[in-house]
């Protein structure tokens, strides 16, 4: 370390201590002008044995504790370097050298996990829903296309916690290390726009090293530091990827894409689906976009072009929109299937939608969604079944030559359905009361329908015919909807089960 750097750092150390309280914000703004300071501090952190490390860490913590955003960001910019320092030291099993870095990181963590009143902070966000009007859209314009189970379960806006509450931590242990570090990266990522290029580069470097050390790729990258493998968690990698994504789009193309590759490499080896998911998405979304590197276009490389506004899809192609009005008439009814087949589709989420669609009738149009445990073997078959149950009260008077088998079939199916809807007891509290009442209404409405089927065939005037056919659409949902019955005379229940992927 050069004497000059040391001088800069020492000056910085003494300067802040003598600062009066009211001068802090001016001081924070002036930090940017000290060109030599930041590189000098990086050097201090990199050289683990420097005498200056401890006072520097202390001062960085003081900066963070001051609450002044600019000072906090000043500290945060060193976070990637500090993390690497901590991880490499802990990998080398030399616990004595990183004490002050540990203290700094834990200090920031303990400050960040509580709010101003000292209560645990919970970071949450609202999941937008197309079914609620927003500043950008009206639900009616979107149409019904997004009415999936998930959309309905979240009818309205739901607030979701994505981090917290966290426990205060006194020390780093192998168990809590990545929990703390992941949270710290989350804080860093929240301030990404304020980070300098050096900091982003340091983040990329950290990501690469954490991911490749001890693996064959280390040779390719020619990194000669520690060569022990570092344990990582998927969540940690996802946070790294978030930072890398920003770096990649804001000037650090070369380092960023290298880092992204390395993280994906590690995620593959560790079989982390979360990290692979986000990493793949970033790679694929940047595939077409020609990223400009730092040298020419300024720091930001986000560019847009004028795009043609007319639809590029020719009018005569069949699209989901054009097909929507189309009515499918399928008659290849398949029976409910043997229990073995049904067992195959053992999916966790069960959804039930009764509901009618038809302008000329007034069916129960309640839509509910439930993620329900189906406790009956066969009822598992009702996987994501969308049931359009309604009584068909039109003129099909003669249609009641009730086959016994068919009515049994109906009863069987009815049992399963009620089971499905009534077993919602041990359900997580994510449901709204709306869906609960709806489920009650549903079982009632279905009962009506079912009882409409069961009566003996003598009753021609009852003329309540329910036909249900359940077919698996390409989006994985089954639709159970009444089909006008002209050819067949008996009510029948048919469930078409498509291949479950």
């Amino acid at each position, binding site marked *: 370390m050069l004497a000059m750097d040391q001088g800069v750092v020492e000056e910085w150390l003494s300067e802040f201590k003598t600062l009066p309280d009211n001068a802090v914000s001016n001081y924070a703004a002036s930090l940017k002008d000290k060109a030599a300071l930041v590189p000098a501090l990086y050097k201090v952190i990199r050289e683990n044995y420097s005498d200056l490390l401890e006072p520097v860490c202390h001062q960085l913590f003081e900066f963070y504790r001051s609450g002044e955003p600019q000072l906090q960001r000043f500290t945060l910019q060193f976070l990637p370097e500090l993390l690497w320092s901590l991880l490499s030291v802990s990998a080398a099993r030399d616990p004595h050298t990183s004490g002050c870095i540990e203290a700094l990181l834990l200090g920031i963590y303990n400050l960040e996990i509580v709010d101003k009143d000292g209560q645990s902070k919970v970071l949450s*966000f609202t999941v*937008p829903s197309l079914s609620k009007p*927003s*500043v950008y859209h009206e639900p009616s314009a979107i149409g019904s296309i997004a009415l999936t189970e998930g959309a309905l379960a979240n009818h309205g806006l739901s607030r979701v916690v994505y981090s917290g509450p966290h426990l205060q931590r006194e020390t780093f242990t192998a168990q809590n290390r990545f929990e703390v570090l992941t949270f710290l990266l989350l804080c860093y990522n929240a301030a990404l726009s304020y980070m300098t290029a050096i900091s982003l580069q340091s983040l990329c470097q950290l990501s690469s090293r954490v991911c490749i050390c001890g693996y064959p790729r280390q040779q390719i990258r020619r990194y000669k530091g520690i060569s022990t493998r570092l344990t990582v968690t998927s969540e940690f990698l996802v946070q790294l990827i978030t930072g890398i994504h920003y770096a990649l789009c804001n000037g650090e193309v070369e380092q960023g894409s290298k880092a992204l590759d390395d993280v994906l490499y590690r995620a593959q080896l560790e079989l982390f689906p979360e990290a692979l998911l986000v990493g793949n998405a970033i790679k694929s979304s940047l595939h077409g976009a020609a990223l400009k590197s730092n040298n020419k276009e300024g720091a930001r490389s986000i560019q847009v072009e004028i795009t043609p506004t*007319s639809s590029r899809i020719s009018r005569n192609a069949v*699209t989901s929109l054009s097909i929507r009005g189309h009515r499918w008439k399928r008659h290849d009814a398949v029976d409910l299937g043997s229990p073995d087949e049904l067992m195959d589709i053992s999916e966790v989420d*069960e959804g039930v939608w009764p509901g009618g669609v038809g302008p000329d009738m007034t069916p129960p149009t309640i839509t509910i969604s439930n993620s329900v445990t189906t406790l009956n073997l066969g009822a598992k078959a009702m996987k994501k079944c969308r049931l359009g149950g309604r009584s068909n009260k039109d003129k099909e008077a003669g249609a009641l030559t009730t086959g016994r088998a068919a009515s049994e079939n109906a009863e069987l199916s009815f049992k399963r359905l009620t089971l499905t809807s009534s077993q919602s*007891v041990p359900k*997580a509290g994510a449901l709204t009361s709306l869906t609960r009442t709806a489920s009650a209404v549903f079982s009632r409405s279905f009962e009506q329908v079912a009882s409409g089927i069961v009566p003996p065939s003598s009753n021609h005037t009852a003329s309540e015919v329910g036909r249900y056919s359940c077919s698996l659409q390409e989006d994985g949902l089954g639709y159970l909807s009444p089909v006008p019955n002209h050819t067949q005379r008996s009510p029948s229940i048919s469930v078409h089960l498509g291949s*479950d992927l």
Partner: protein
Amino acid sequence: MTARKSGSRLETEIERCRSESQWDKIPELVRQLSAKLISNDDLGELLLGECKLQTYLKENPIKQGASPRGPRPKLVEVRKHLTAALDRGNLKADYLQEASLLMAKLCYVEGEYRDALGHYSRVSLEDMQLGGAPVYRLSMIAEAYATKGLCLEKVPAASPALSNKNTGSPSSNRSITDREQEIITCYEKSGDIALLYLQEAEKALSAGIQNRSPKPGPTAQDLELGYFLETGLQRAHVIHFKNGNLTRGVGRFREILRAVENRTTQSLRMTIARQLAEILLRGMCEQSYWSPLEDPPTVSPLDDPTRQGHTLSKNYSLSRRPRVYSGENLFCPQENTEEALLLLLISESMANRDAVLSRIPEHNNDRIISLQSASVVYDLLTIALGRRGQYEMLSECLERAMKFAFEEFHLWYQLALSLMAAGKSARAVKVLKECIRLKPDDPTIPLLAVKLCIGPLHWLDEGECFANMVIDMGEKAAEFRAKGFLAIGLVYSLKATDASLRSTQEEYQRKALGAFQRAQSLSPTDHLAAFYLALQLAVSRQIPEALGYVRQALQLQGDDVHSLHLLALLLSAQKHYHDALNIIEMALSEYPENFNLLYTKVKLESMCRGPEEALLSCKHMLQIWKSFYNLTNPSDSGRGSSLLDRAIADRRQLNAMTLPDFSDPETVSGSSSSYSGSEPVSPTSPSTISTLSSPLSSPSSPLFILQPPPLPPTKNPTFLPPGPPHPPLPHPAPTRTRSHTFCNHITLRQLSNCGLQDANILGFSSMFSVCSVHATSIAASRVEQALSEVASSLQSSAPKHGPLHPWMTLAQIWLHAAEVYTGMSKPAEASACTQEASNLFPTSHNVLYMRGQIAELRGNIEEAKRWYEEALSINPTHVKTMQRLGLILHQLQRYSLSEKVLRDAVQVNSTAHDVWNSLGEVLQAQGNAAAATECFLTALELEASSPILPFTIIPRAL
């Protein structure tokens, strides 16, 4: 009169045609017009000029980025018409303006930018009325602003010929800025008016269709934005971004998006929504974000610092603006991810609508276009949702992408990964199969499938098949080859544990050992390979060899919890209990919340330090359990926040929660309840817990779960005993209500346990105070009911190892405490602890087994027998129960039955030395000395290598 009337009708007709861009009808109308009134000749010229210009532009559209140059022969006529209209000066002011605007446009098309600007300055665009103007004029004005902007960009700023009012500023630098500002203002105005025009045009069109239903012409025809309007709508933000002015670019995007959409703007909106989402995700962070309804920050890190200060805010106003979305309770995003998500959901719904479904070759291009635009949106959705950990929602979104996914590997793979991340394992495996078909060379995909098969699904045969795929890739799999062997080794190892026949067990163990050795030799630096090799050796009771490899694993990964645990167990097998305990304590200093280690600790402590220490550890475990699962904030709801989600998210913790005898063959079927409980039922969502911790809630009514927790009935507040010191919360309790109810539970518990008060040695009651589940057990027993129903529906031959329920952990802790008390010969306390576990899982064979032990302790042989039989009826292969039952039968002198039971037990687990010992005793009692000796010898031999808890409590996962 009639002439005038028809004349005005003619005018309306002309206006309509101009608004609807039906230029081909104009010449005919002009002919009619000139037949009516002579004074309209000039108007005729204007109209003819306009229609010819527009037709020309329609036939020769200007391309973005290309600048028109030079006079076009076809436009000569246009110029003639317009000149004629302008020169005579007979036109009304409105039409005169229109003629000038058209002339300027013509000039632009011919490349005469200065002339065009001249025309615009004469017209003074700013004065043109927006209110009450016919629809077509709005479009004209919008185009005029755009064209003016284009011209200003073309003409050099310093040009003296410029007819710019703002020129004359002293510094040329400032004039450049001013000029830039002027250009941007032109475009922004153009864009705003264009949006207004499109809204009005659509309104007029729909009104027109309703009014005169006959001869609608090409009604459904969409309006088309020409080059000029497109430029006007988009050029402003393009310039902002080019200048590095993200703040204003984003602001402009938002303005366009907030305008109420119509058919023509849909595609533009989709693009812009996606682009804005990209910017929000790529270029912004939480701290630099501002909401769409807020003013942007004056200084933002998003803007190019070298141009900072040039970020003038919008400085114009229009008399009429496009309608924006309004109303009460509009959702306005408050965070960048929220806004990005909203925008992406809107884009997604549009992209989904445009999904080209037909697969005929003619539509190939359309399909590719629709796929591309959709997959960009889905990728961005993945980034946004992945950042927030919302994998469940993501998997639902990606499921909707499946209509694009035919033969598209990326979409399939992403769906599979999202299903996996959302914990929908069975489905994930099925999708992964399709991914393997599409990309058979990628070793990661089958490995992911094995991971699921070994872990949550316990589909060992499928797992074997997937692992073999990786191995069959040979050298191509590179670094993944070792992983493949590791995977197959794990499959065999688990199969060996499940196998009921000794010969199959040994066969699988041999295979597993071989595979682990292979993995270890292929990847000597992988600690997992060494660790699993050690574990497998340990299971086969090759203790010294196992110690060698576990040391190797620890050298590679010093703080690996499973290696440390295995080391401790190996030491305990060598009867170095104190060393083992030291190792466990060391491991616990790194993993203080690992229940698995704690279970072993309890066992070792009661062995080395006496039961008092062990009880303290039990209490400590209860405290950890409480702080760990109490932490979840009860106020949050929705996905991703329930306890279980958290438990699933935290894989380390999950592994830590494996029950001690969980993967033991004898308990496998009973533990299946835990498997099934984890996915479909999630009774531990915070709201459930908070309500259920109140005794008031009626378990039969699910609706109660949705209500805020009512205060528990403190029947007699004065009765509150000073009680045991409430354990200090290691962390501020999330809510006061909660800790309040909690306290009340304790008191209730205390009251109901009066009989136990006298047995209050060793902090017994304080143990209850930590984690009594009296009230929660109502819920839990319901859960248990559900669980056991599922469990009974599953064959015991299909054991499942899955993520565990927090309640399971709690029950396990109580059972451990009960065991310690039984060891101390304290049946009352033991039975109280068992009761706690039984409240949670009344039909668990472990609970029944423990009850049997207590009965034995009390000397009730018959009762014990009954409990054991019940336990066996739930889990017929629970070896410990079989052993106890065998002993009791022995005591009852029913030797042959006893022998039968014990032989069965040995068949299930041939390494249980105490079973061998009991068998020896029974055989001896029957007078079969030779066989008895053999049994005793076997028992002796096995005992020498027997760990304190079975090695298989260490979880095996990829």
